[in-house]
C-alpha cells in the first residue's frame, strides 16, 4: 500500500489526554514526561483517554475498537470536541480544533461534521421528518428547502412513508436509520459513529452494516467508526485502531492485526475472526524457490476465500503475483492452515 502524503489526513490528533478526577486540570501541566498508569491511579484520577495520537485519512473508514470502558466514546467526543480534552492537539483539515472559538466551532458542526449515537438520540417530540430536518432548522434554513433535503435523506436510508412517525413508533433499526439520515442532512465531510449498531439485534445489525457499506460507496465520507465488535470492524474498516485503558495499542488493517498482533490483547480480539475473508495470498505465501511447478497465478491482494476452491481443485501451488512479478507461492497446506486456524507462517 502506498503511503499517502501527510496533508491527506482529514483528522489528526497528537498526545490527546482526557483525565477525570478532582485535580485533573493541573496534573499533566505539572510534569515534564507523560505519566505512567500507576502515577495516574495513585493521584486518584481516571485516564479515559491517555496519550492518543492517530491520523484519519480523507475518505477512509477508521474504526476504533476496544472493550467497553476502554475509552472509545470519550476519544470520539474529544475528536469532535463534545468533551474538552485535558491536553493534546486535534487537527481538522490542518486547523487546530481546540483553538477554534465557540462560534466557529458551531459553524464547523453545522456544516462539516455529523455524528450518530449508540442510543439514537432522536428528539422524542419531533416526527421523523422534523428530526432529520433539525440540523437544518437550527441553521435557519427555510421550511420547504429543509424538508426537501430531509426527504432526500429519508429516501436514502429507506424510510420513505414513515416521515410522520414519532421516534417511539419505530423499531430500533428504523430509529438508527433516522439517526443516520439526520447526521447526513447537512452533508458533512467528517462523520462520527459511536457504536451505532450495538443496541440492535444481530440480524438487524448485519443488515445495517450492509446498508452502511452501500451508503459509504455513494457518499465517500471520512469516517470515524466506534465498535466493540471485531467482526464489525473487519467488515467495515479500512484501518482499525485497538484501544485499551484509554491507550491506542495498535493501528493497522484487519489483516495486519491478525498477522502481527502487538500483544495478547489484540490477538484475543482477532482469534475468532473470519480469517479466510481477511487474509490475502500475500499473508500466507512462502518464498518462491527457484523453478517450482505452478498450477496458476493469484494476485497478492486476493483474499484466501476467493482462491481457496480453485487451489483445492488444482494439483500444484499457485504463484503469487504483484506488479507482474512472482513474489511467492501458496499451497494447499497454507490454505488449510487458515481454515483450521493454525498458526500463521511468518512472511
Amino acid at each position: 500500500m502506498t503511503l499517502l502524503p501527510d496533508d491527506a489526513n482529514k483528522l489528526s490528533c497528537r498526545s490527546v489526554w482526557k483525565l477525570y478526577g478532582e485535580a485533573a486540570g493541573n496534573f499533566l501541566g505539572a510534569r515534564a514526561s507523560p505519566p505512567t498508569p500507576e502515577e495516574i491511579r495513585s493521584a486518584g484520577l481516571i485516564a479515559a483517554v491517555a496519550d492518543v495520537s492517530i491520523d484519519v485519512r480523507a475518505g477512509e473508514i477508521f474504526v476504533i475498537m476496544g472493550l467497553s470502558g476502554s475509552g472509545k466514546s470519550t476519544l470520539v467526543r474529544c475528536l469532535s470536541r463534545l468533551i474538552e480534552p485535558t491536553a493534546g492537539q486535534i487537527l481538522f483539515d490542518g486547523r487546530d480544533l481546540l483553538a477554534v472559538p465557540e462560534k466557529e466551532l458551531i459553524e464547523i458542526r453545522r456544516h462539516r461534521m455529523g455524528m450518530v449515537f449508540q442510543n439514537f438520540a432522536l428528539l422524542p417530540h419531533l416526527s421523523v421528518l422534523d428530526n432529520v430536518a433539525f440540523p437544518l432548522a437550527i441553521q435557519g434554513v427555510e421550511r420547504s428547502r429543509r424538508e426537501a433535503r430531509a426527504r432526500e435523506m429519508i429516501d436514502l436510508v429507506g424510510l420513505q412513508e414513515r416521515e410522520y412517525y414519532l421516534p417511539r413508533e419505530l423499531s430500533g433499526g428504523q430509529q438508527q436509520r433516522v439517526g443516520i439520515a439526520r447526521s447526513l442532512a447537512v452533508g458533512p465531510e467528517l462523520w462520527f459513529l459511536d457504536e451505532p449498531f450495538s443496541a440492535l439485534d444481530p440480524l438487524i445489525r448485519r443488515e445495517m452494516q450492509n446498508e452502511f457499506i452501500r451508503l459509504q460507496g455513494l457518499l465517500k465520507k471520512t469516517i470515524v467508526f466506534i465498535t466493540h465488535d471485531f467482526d464489525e470492524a473487519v467488515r467495515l474498516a479500512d484501518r482499525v485502531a485497538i484501544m485499551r485503558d484509554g491507550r491506542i495499542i495498535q493501528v493497522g488493517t484487519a489483516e495486519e492485526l491478525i498477522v502481527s498482533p502487538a500483544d495478547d490483547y489484540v490477538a484475543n480480539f482477532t482469534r475468532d475472526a473470519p480469517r479466510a475473508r481477511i487474509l490475502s495470498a500475500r499473508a500466507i505465501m512462502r518464498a518462491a524457490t527457484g523453478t517450482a511447478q505452478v498450477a496458476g497465478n493469484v494476485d497478492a491482494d486476493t483474499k484466501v476465500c476467493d482462491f481457496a476452491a480453485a487451489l483445492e481443485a488444482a494439483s500444484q501451488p499457485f504463484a503469487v503475483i504483484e506488479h507482474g512479478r512472482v513474489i511467492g507461492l501458496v499451497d494447499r497446506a497454507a490454505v488449510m492452515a487458515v481454515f483450521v486456524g493454525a498458526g500463521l507462517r511468518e512472511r
Partner: protein
Amino acid sequence: MQTTAHRIAAPTRFSPPWRRAFWFGVLIIAFAFAFLQTAKPPDWMLDLPREHWLPLQAGISAAMKWLVETANFGLFTFSEATRFVAYLLDQPLALATAVFAHGFTQGHGSAAIELMPPLPWLAALLAACAIALHAGGVRLAVLAAGAMGYLIVFGQWQSAMQTFASIVIAVPFGVVGGLLLGIAGHRSARFHKALMPILDAMQTVPIFAYLLPILFLFGFGPVAALLATIMYALPPMARVTLLALSAVPTELVEAGRMAGCTPRQLIARVMIPAARAPLMTGVNQVIMLSLNMVIIASMIGAGGLGYDVLASLRQLDIGGGLEAGTAIVVLAITLDRVSQAYAKRALEVRRRGALRYRWVLLGIVVALWLAALKIEPLRHYPESWTLSTGVFWDDLVEWLNVNYFDSFEAVKTAILLKFMIPVKRFLLAQPWPFVLFCVMAAALSIAGLRRAVIAGIFVLTIVFTGLWQPAIVSVYLTGVSVLLAVAMGVPIGIASGTRPRLWKFVEVMIDTLQTLPSFVYLIPVVMLFRVGDFTAMFAIILYALAPAIRYTALGIREVDPGVIEAATAMGATRMQIMLRIRLPLALPSILLGINQTIMLALSMLVITALVGTRDLGQEVYIALVKADVGRGLTAGIGVAMIAMIADRLMMASAVRMKRRLGLG
C-alpha cells in the same frame, strides 16, 4: 460519593448496647423532669427571661423600615422599586379581574358605569367544557360542566372567578420565572449552588411567613396577594426544571450540540422539549400551589373564595364556609384534572392538534358577551335561580350537635385529657439545655458532627429569640398529629400496598386529599369540634396523612419480587412475608413518608392558628394581623428551623437504613 459512604459506614459514636443504655437514661431523666417535683428545673430553663433575648425581632423590623423608608439604589429608592413592581403586576391582574369577575367600568364607587360586563357565566361554562373536552374527552367535560354548574347555581361564581383571575395571572409568572431560574441554575454551577439553599429555605418557611414582608412592602391588596402567590409557587417549578434538565439523556444533548445548536437553541429546542413530561408536572404543581396560596392570601387582600371562607370561619358561619370551601374543592379538582390531561396529551398525540372549532367557540363567546350587554340574566346569573345549601348545612350541624354533641364532646375530651394534654405537659416540663443536649446527641449519632452543630445553633436561636414555649407547643402539636397520622397511614399503606384494587381506591382518595388547599381542611373539623388544639390536630392529620400512606404502599409494593418468591419457596406464610420481609425492606421508604408527613404537618400548623392554637403559627398569625414583620418572620424562621432539623435527621436515618439493607 466515596467520602459519604465512608462516613456513613464508619462506626458511630455509641456502640449499640451503649447507645440503647444512653437513650434509656435520657428517657428516665425526661420523665423525672416531668413528674418529680424535686427535679423541677429553674424557670429560666423553661422560658428564657426577656432581658436575655437577642434583639432579632427588632432588628428585622428596623431593617424592613430602613428598606421602605430610606433604602436608595442611587437612581431610585427601594419603595419606588416596589411600587414599580406593583404597578407591573397590577396591569395584567386588573385586566384579568375585569374579564372574569368585575367587568370593565368607568368611574369609581357607586358612580361607576359598566362599559362591558365580565365574561358571561354561560360563555365561561361553554368554554370550560370545550377546553376540558379537548384536553381529556367527554368524562372530563362532564366534570367541568358539573364544577362550573356548582359554582354558578350555588352563588359562588363571582368569588370563584376572582380567585381564578389571580391564578390566570400568577401561573404564567410562576412557570416562566421558575423555568428561567432552573435554566440559569442548570447552566451555571455557581448559580446552582447559590440557588439550592434558597429554594430549600423557601420550601420550609411556612406560608404565612411569606405574607408578612410582602404585606409590609406592598401593602394590603390583590397585588400583594398575587406577589405572595407567585413567590410561593415559583420555587417548586425551579426545582422541577433543574431536575428535569439534568435528567435529559447526555446523548441527546450531544446530538443537539453536534447539530450545531447555540447554547440557547440547545435549551429551547432540545432540552426543554425532551424534558416536557416532568416540566408539565411542574406546571400542574404551580397551578395547584397558586390556588392554595391565593386562598390563604385572602388574609392580605386577595379576595375571592379564600376571603369567603375566612370570613365564614371568623363568624363561625359553617354553612357559608362549607359552600365556599366546596367551591374551592371543585375549582381545585377541575384545574388539576384539566391541567393533568393536557400534560398527558402533550406526550401522547402525534401532531398536537389545536383546539378544533376554536374560532367557532371564540365566536360564540364573543356573541354571548355582546348579548350580555342587553340581556340581564346572561350578564349576572339571576339571584332567584341560585340555590343555597347553607341552611341545610346549618341544620345538619345543629342536628348533629343536638343528637351527637355529647359523643363528639366525649371523644374530644377523652383524647385531649388522656393523650394531648399529658404530651404537652411532658414536653413543656423539659428544660431547654436538656432538649438541646438530646437534639445534638441524636443529630450526632444519626447525621454527624456538622449537622449536630447546626441543629444546636437552631435550637439556641429559638431559645434566644424568646420563642421557646411556642416552639415546644408547635412540636407537641406536630408530634401528636404526626403520631396519629402515622398510626393511621402506615397500616392503610400496608393493607393497600399488596392489594391493587384497594390501592386504586385509596390512591384516588389521597390524590384528592392532596389537591385541596390546606384551608379547606379546617371547615368540616371546626363544624364538628369548634376551635382548639383538638380541632387543629384533626385538620393537620387530614392534611398530612397522604404521604404516610403513599410512601408505605410504595415501599411495600416495590420489594424485590425475587426475594418474595424465595421466601414463598421456603414456605413462609403471607403474614411472615409481610412482617419479616416486606415491612423491614419498606422501612426506608416509610421513613421518607413520615418525613413528608412531618413537613406537611408543620406547614399546616401555621394555618391552624386560625382555630386558636398557642404555637409559633399563632405568633405568625398575630404578627400578620398587626403587620409586625420582625415578630412574624422570627416565628416563621423558628418553624423553618424545626422543619429543617426534623427533615435532615429523618433523611439521614432513611439513607442509613437503606445502606444497611443494601438497597443502594
